[in-house]
């Protein structure tokens, strides 16, 4: 049985359908990514999961039990990191973590240890006595995370935790999430940054307009689309027959030749650059620069929806 079961979830805001018969199963121990552009319904799913939002139809089960607003025992095992930083400006870093941890762990001695661990875990050591308004954006995000995970929950929900964060802090946050997962927490991670989702998530659901367009591991998702590797060759001079030969090479999905630049898209998995370079060597064709790109989740999203993920 899945740790989280979402069945036929429908949420409407007046005339707008925010979630359209959404079905999701999230297994214990995985890092599950909810990927989608802004407004796709990621945060709405999270708010419904936490029983903060009323929904029109469907059901949500967590740990095998129906999630209700007063399901305090379920909530006790969940850690939440909101999209907006939710900490007290008037409390120091350690007081903030202690406060939120205290909502779950009443024992003071146990809490003290957990707070110290959360500070080390999020790299906030040295900032314990600082107020949030003295922290950089990245440190503030880390504090936001520390407040959500200090009580070592079984399930951690992170709603776009890296928005407006510098690369260094982002890497630190992503490493921390993987570490939490290794320590036994199941993670739900929402983001519109496909690289992050691709980097850390074991399974991914792509959302758009409240619908789940595709779900699976990143490999499974990439296999769902027709196009695979993309090869760019710049400063290349081709004759008509040579271009035709390239177009008819195995797995070539499309070939565009403009202003001495050739862009090739291949079907399915695998690298095709080497074969292409062998052909060019035989034909004494030279080029100024060449590079190859494997398909990304953006390509998956592009092919499924016809638009870029970051539109």
């Amino acid at each position, binding site marked *: 049985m899945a740790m989280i079961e979402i069945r036929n979830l429908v949420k409407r805001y007046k005339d707008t359908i925010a979630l359209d018969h959404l079905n999701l199963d999230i297994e214990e121990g995985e890092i599950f990514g909810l990927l989608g552009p802004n407004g796709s319904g990621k945060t709405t799913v999270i708010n419904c999961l*936490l029983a903060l939002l009323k929904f029109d139809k469907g059901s949500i089960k967590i740990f095998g039990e129906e999630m209700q*607003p007063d399901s305090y025992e379920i909530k006790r095992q969940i850690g939440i990191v909101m999209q907006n930083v939710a900490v007290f400006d008037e409390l120091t870093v350690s*007081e903030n973590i202690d406060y939120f941890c205290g*909502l779950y762990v009443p024992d003071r001695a146990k809490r003290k240890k957990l707070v110290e661990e959360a500070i080390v875990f999020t790299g906030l050591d040295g900032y314990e006595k600082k107020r949030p308004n003295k922290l950089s954006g990245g440190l503030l995000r880390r504090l936001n995370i520390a*407040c959500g995970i200090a009580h070592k929950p079984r399930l951690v929900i992170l709603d776009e935790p890296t928005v407006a964060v510098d690369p260094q802090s982002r890497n630190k946050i992503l490493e921390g999430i993987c570490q939490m997962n290794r320590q036994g927490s199941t993670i739900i991670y929402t983001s519109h940054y496909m690289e992050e989702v691709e980097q850390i998530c074991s399974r991914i659901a792509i959302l758009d307009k409240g619908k789940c367009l595709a779900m699976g591991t990143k490999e499974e998702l990439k296999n769902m689309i027709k196009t695979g590797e993309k090869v760019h060759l710049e400063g290349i001079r081709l004759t008509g027959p040579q271009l035709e030969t390239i177009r008819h090479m195995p797995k070539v999905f499309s070939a565009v030749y403009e202003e001495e630049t050739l862009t090739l898209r291949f079907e399915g998995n695998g690298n095709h650059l080497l074969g292409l370079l062998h052909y060019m060597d035989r034909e004494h064709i030279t080029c100024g620069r060449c590079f190859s790109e494997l398909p990304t989740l953006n390509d998956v999203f592009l092919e499924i929806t016809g638009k870029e993920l970051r539109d």
Partner: protein
Amino acid sequence: MFLIMKRQILVNIREKANIFWTMFFPLILATLFHFTLGGLLGQNEMGEISAAFVLEDTASSAVEGDAFFEYLDHLDQEWLKLTPMSDEEARAALKEDEILGIFYGGRERRLVIGENSIHTSMLSQLLDIYEKNETLLNRIAQEHPEKLPGAAAELAGYRASTETVSFGGRSMDNVQNYFFALIAMTCLYGSFMGMYNTVGVQANTSALGARLAAGCVKRYESITASLLSAWIISFAEVAVLLFYMDVVLGDIDLAGQIGRILVICAAATLYSSALGMVIGTVGSLSEKLKNGLVVAVSMTCSFAADLMISGVKGAIEKYVPLINRINPGALTTDAFYSVLVYEDAERYFRSLGLLAALGLLLLGIAVLSMRRMRYESI
């Protein structure tokens, strides 16, 4: 719940703008009131009036037995301090402002005063009344001698129809009302705390509220903690103001009445905290808008309680008394007045009862509005 309350109090105390407006601003106003209105305090107070009695043109120098002296000495008034003196002593005392007037008795009665004031007018009235009564009795003696004993008894019996009213409090000064209105305003500022704390526990009004609502804190615990923390802080702030006005500035005198005053402040801050909570639950308006609402409500109530202009409360009492029965500012100043100025237990308990009842009613409304745990939108 204790942890939430403790942290909420710490947060409220550290919120500088909040503490400035709810605690330091009233203290600053109290200081300004002290220097501007403090000078007026006591001007209208009815103190003791000292006067000398000089017996003229009689063979005896003993004042006892002189009818006019006996009349003055046996007046049913505690405010007249009459001292028999020689003419020289009396004039010297008047010159030194030790007395306000000199009554001359004997064959001819007259009054000499130093300056015209309400107090010397009162001395003058005493002489006038005596002269009129003497003339009246002389006429009765001449025209209806048989009625003289009855008339004399009637005049002497005026005390029977004079009701003695205890002011109980320490001041009869209307200027005190400004200080009471200031205390009422500070009580009303408890609504800021109520509003802030309410916004902080609702998922649809703040990210912090959403985090708390998503956590495992029971709803009633977070609501109770936010009310109690708001109430405790606003009550403490009013207590600081009372201490400052009583002990440091000396503009009010709470000695012996501190218990009743604290009870009324507790009820007023409960009312205000609950009022703030109700405003805090109004839809999903921004905190700034709700803050504006609290300012508007608290200042309107203070205005209607005579904080800015004297006489507003009286006018409301005359035309729409219901407003004074629900305005926490008016109820608080009424209770203060009935303890510290005009002893009126009925009015005190009416104000106290209304503050407590309306506070509980508002609290009920706030709890009903906040009981929702799921929202249509966040």
